[in-house]
């Protein structure tokens, strides 16, 4: 197991180099001049523009620019924006918001999704099951910005139990509403996933054995059936954790939250090459770690999977 983890961690290095290079090229290929973008609608002063171009190596060929960038990354310097702000500053300011939003959302979707799925599976074909099925279908079909706006109107304006937008009230008040909105779709998927996989394992022979052993129902379902149903759920959750950490551009916009997603969108628009590459690299790292965690969870959940 230890060797497996080390090998997986070593694999991160080539992945990071590859991903940063591809992103770098993609941003490079975008039309538009970042220095002109700094000046907005006015024409940029040619002298200042020349100095800036020189300072940010913009006149050098792509591979040299990439080399400047990647050697900085490996010495811990993520570079700076074209108006001189350190990118590490942006990350440390923006990332906590995304982290809090993402983790809250993750907790909501895992807890509510799994509970709803279990209820649904145990009451299969009954009223409660149908409620869950219809509710999840509705959640999957409603776009995030509609749900977000409706929630703001209901819970923020009419009932006044949560702030409408922004993060002034801090965690959890300001985060709970956007977290629920962000979680809604995945929550619905998880509920359905748990429902189908638990229904399947309840019919399995080993559950019949567990009943024949005279175990209480709680133990039969909660331990014998659930342990086996969790494997696909963990896969989905791990994948989703990475996605949530990537920032939710729409949710952040609707609730006016200064997270990674909004920053990334803005930086693409401004052709802030180092910012885009830096943020994407960070997201890739989070994805890789989430994936590794999922793979390690497999081994805990299913002893038939062994790593060498």
């Amino acid at each position, binding site marked *: 197991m230890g060797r497996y983890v080390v090998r997986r961690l070593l694999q991160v290095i080539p992945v990071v180099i590859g991903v940063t290079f591809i992103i770098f090229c993609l941003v490079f290929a975008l039309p538009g001049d970042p220095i002109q973008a700094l000046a907005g609608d006015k024409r940029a002063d040619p002298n200042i523009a020349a100095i800036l171009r020189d300072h940010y190596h913009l006149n050098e060929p792509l591979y040299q620019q990439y080399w400047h960038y990647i050697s900085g990354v490996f010495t811990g310097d993520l570079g700076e924006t074209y108006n001189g702000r350190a990118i590490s500053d942006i990350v440390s300011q923006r990332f906590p918001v995304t982290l809090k939003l993402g983790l809250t959302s993750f907790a909501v979707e895992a807890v509510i999704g799994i509970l709803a799925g279990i209820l649904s599976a145990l009451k299969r074909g009954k009223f409660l099951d149908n409620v869950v099925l219809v509710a999840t279908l509705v959640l999957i079909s409603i776009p995030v910005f509609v749900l977000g706006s409706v929630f703001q109107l209901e819970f923020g304006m009419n009932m006044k139990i949560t702030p409408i937008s922004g993060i002034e009230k801090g965690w959890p008040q300001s985060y709970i509403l956007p977290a629920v909105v962000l979680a809604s779709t995945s929550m619905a998927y998880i509920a359905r996933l748990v429902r189908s996989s638990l229904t399947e394992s309840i019919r*399995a*022979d*080993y559950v*019949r*054995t*567990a*009943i*024949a*052993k*005279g*175990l*209480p129902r709680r*133990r039969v379902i909660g*331990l*014998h059936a659930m*342990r*086996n149903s969790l494997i696909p759920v963990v896969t989905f959750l791990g994948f989703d954790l990475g996605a949530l950490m990537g920032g939710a551009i729409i949710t952040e916009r609707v609730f006016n939250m200064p997270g990674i997603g909004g920053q990334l969108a803005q930086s693409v628009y401004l052709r802030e090459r180092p910012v885009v590459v830096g943020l994407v690299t960070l997201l890739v790292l989070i994805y890789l770690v989430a994936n590794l965690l999922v793979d390690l969870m497999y081994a805990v*959940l*299913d*002893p*038939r999977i062994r790593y060498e």
Partner: protein
Amino acid sequence: MTIIDPTDAIPAPRSGDAEKTGPLLEVRDLHVEFQTREGLVKAVNGVNYSVDSGETLAVLGESGSGKSVTAQAIMGILDMPPARIPQGEILFHGRDMLKMSGEERRKLRGARIAMIFQDALSSLNPVLSVGYQLGEMFRVHQGLSRKEAKVKAIELMDRVKIPAAAARVNDYPHQFSGGMRQRIMIAMALALEPDLIIADEPTTALDVTVQAQVMDLLAELQREYQMGLILITHDLGVVADVADKIAVMYAGRIVETAPVHELYKRPAHPYTRGLLDSIPRLDQKGQDLYAIKGLPPNLLKVPSGCAFNPRCEKAQDICRTELPPLVPVTERDGTELPGRASACHFWKETIHG
């Protein structure tokens, strides 16, 4: 012609006190039906049998004859619904289990009545170690700690002759061979020394050499603990060695009961005869193997009269109209044959002819 309760016709139980309290387990006129989309499936239609301590009853029949459903009804592990027990009694130590509360029945399961399933690989939980699954019996029923339960689990594994039990207690089911897994199933059933074990085709999934070992082990443990054993099988070879008496089932009914050796010598039902004739024998090498023609009946539409009539070579008009009751079988001169009964209009011709 009287309908008899076959339990009366079966030889007196071995243990003395059983006579006072009745047999260990007695199934009376049990009916089980399943509500399905296609209609009502009558899987068990009035089964009677009994088992005593230390006694082995073999229940024989094709797939769909109702033998496993009867066993699951005894265990109380039928899914209800869709299953329903409209009629019948299952007396365990004289008490009707069908009238007990769910919690009462749960406490009997595993502790007093245990079951061994056919396919140990799918019947053991793949994500829990065998030690955990064995120890669970003690933790749930006797409240032992995790540690004490593990010690007991190792003892059990030793008991069913699993080599290096202490080293293998934390292994998972997929790490054992088929025979070893079935031993673990047996150990699990045996854990709390139940009064009755139901073994549902315990050796079907094993290869022949391992089958013999596992059956021997089961028989040995049964003798040692004086347990009642219901052995469900379609393998006549397995039955001959270990069973005391046999009940042959067809379409949810018992069609013949007999002490084991008599059944082999002189079957009193054409279906039993057909089963015996379809065993491959060395002295018939080169000849075509006999097979009962036709297919087991569709339980949605059991044929009227005797359910076996469409496949029976001796079928007459009466077989198609009148359901033959289970009647005692006698010698030609009327001497009783203890424990024998047949549900065939022409049992006399079958056994004596």
